[in-house]
C-alpha cells in the first residue's frame, strides 16, 4: 500500500475523481479518503453537475399519454396468412386440373382410354369433395355444398369442362347431388 499524497487534488485530478474516483492513483485516492477539503471540493463539483440534471427533469414536461401492449402473441401472427394459404391451395388444384385436361386431350383423346377417364373422374371428385367416402355424407348433411350449376360457378373460367365421367366411375355413395 502506498503512502497518501501530501498535496491536494489538482483541477484535472478532481475531474477524474468526478468521473470515477477509483481510477485515481493509489496515493491520491488515499489522500482523498482522508482530506475533508478535497472531499468537499469533489462533492461540490459533482453536485453542481447533477443539479443541472435535476433542474432539467423538473422543467421537462411529463408524458401525457400512457403506453400499453396487449396480446403480443396474437400480434406476431402474419395478417391474412390463412386466407393466402387457402387461395394458394385452390390455385394449385386448378392448375393441376388444367394440366391434366390439356395432357389428356393431346395424348389420349383419340384412344378414349378407360384409365384417363378414371383419372379425370378422380380429379373431378377431389376438386368437388376432398373428403374420404365415409365423411362425405356427414359433410353433406352438416354443411351442404351449393348447387353445382356450371353457369353460376365463378371458377368455371379457370377449370375447363373435361366432359362428364361415366356413370360407373364414381361409386353411388360418393356422388354429390344438388
Amino acid at each position, binding site marked *: 500500500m502506498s503512502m497518501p499524497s501530501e498535496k491536494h487534488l489538482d483541477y484535472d485530478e478532481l475531474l477524474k475523481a468526478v468521473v470515477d474516483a477509483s481510477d485515481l492513483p493509489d496515493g491520491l485516492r488515499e489522500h482523498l479518503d482522508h482530506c475533508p477539503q478535497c472531499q468537499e471540493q469533489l462533492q461540490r463539483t459533482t453536485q453542481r453537475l447533477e443539479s*443541472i440534471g435535476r433542474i*432539467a427533469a423538473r422543467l421537462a414536461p411529463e408524458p401525457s399519454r400512457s403506453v400499453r401492449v396487449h396480446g403480443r402473441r396474437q400480434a406476431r401472427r402474419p395478417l391474412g396468412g390463412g386466407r393466402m394459404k387457402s387461395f394458394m391451395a385452390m390455385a394449385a388444384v386448378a392448375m393441376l386440373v388444367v394440366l391434366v385436361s390439356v395432357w389428356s386431350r393431346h395424348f389420349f383423346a383419340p384412344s378414349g382410354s378407360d384409365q384417363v377417364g378414371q383419372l379425370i373422374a378422380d380429379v373431378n371428385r377431389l376438386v368437388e369433395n376432398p373428403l374420404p367416402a365415409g365423411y362425405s355424407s356427414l359433410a353433406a348433411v352438416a354443411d351442404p355444398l351449393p348447387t353445382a350449376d356450371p353457369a353460376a360457378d365463378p371458377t368455371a373460367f379457370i377449370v375447363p369442362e373435361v366432359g362428364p365421367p361415366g356413370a360407373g366411375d364414381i361409386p353411388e355413395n360418393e356422388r354429390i347431388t344438388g
Partner: protein
Amino acid sequence: MTQPPSSPGIGRDADARWLTELVRSARQGDDLAFNRLIDLHHEAIYKMIFYRIKDAMDAEDLSQEVFLQACRNIGRLRQAANFRAWLFRIAVNRVKDYRRRKRWSFIRGLFRTEDLSGQDGRLAVQAPEGPERVRRQQFWQEVDRLLEPLSPAEQEAFRLRFFDQLSIKEIGQVLDKPENTVKTHLYRALRKVKASPFLDRLAEAAP
C-alpha cells in the same frame, strides 16, 4: 406476474431482483409484466428523449416507439438485469433516426414555398405561459450552449451520466463502448463544461 417488494425501504437488491423477475416474465410473453416495466421506465425514457429533441409531442411518439420496439425484441435481451440500459440504447437509436428524418425534412422545407409559420404551434400549445415559459426556454438554450463545444460522443456520455443518471457501466452498454472509452469521453466533456460560463449560470438556477 411477480409482486413488488412490500416495503419501499427493502433495499436496492430486492428492487433489482424484482425488476429482473419482471423482465423474465415479460420475455415469456406476460403483458402485465411488460406494462409494469413500461410504467417504471416511461417517464425516464420520455424525458431522456425530450432532453435531446425538445419537442414534447414528438417525444411522446418516440417513447411509444421505443417501448413497442422493446416489446417486439425482448426475446433477444440476454441479461434481464441489463433491461434499463437496453431500453436507453433503443431510445438513443430512435433519437438518431428522428434527427436524420428532421434533417431531411428541413432540407425539403428549403425548397417548399408554403407558409411554415404554424410549426411552432406544437411547442407553444404545451408550454406554460409568461415568465415560466421564458425561464424554461432560457434554460434549454443555455444547456445547448453549455454542450455546444462537446463532440457528439462527449455530449451523449455527459447527458446519459448527468441528465439520465446512468452509471458508467450502463453508459458503456447504451453506447456499445468499453467503460474506459466512456470515462475518457466524460473526462473530456467535464473539462469543457467546467470551463464554460454557462455551468455557473445553470447551476445557480437550481433552487
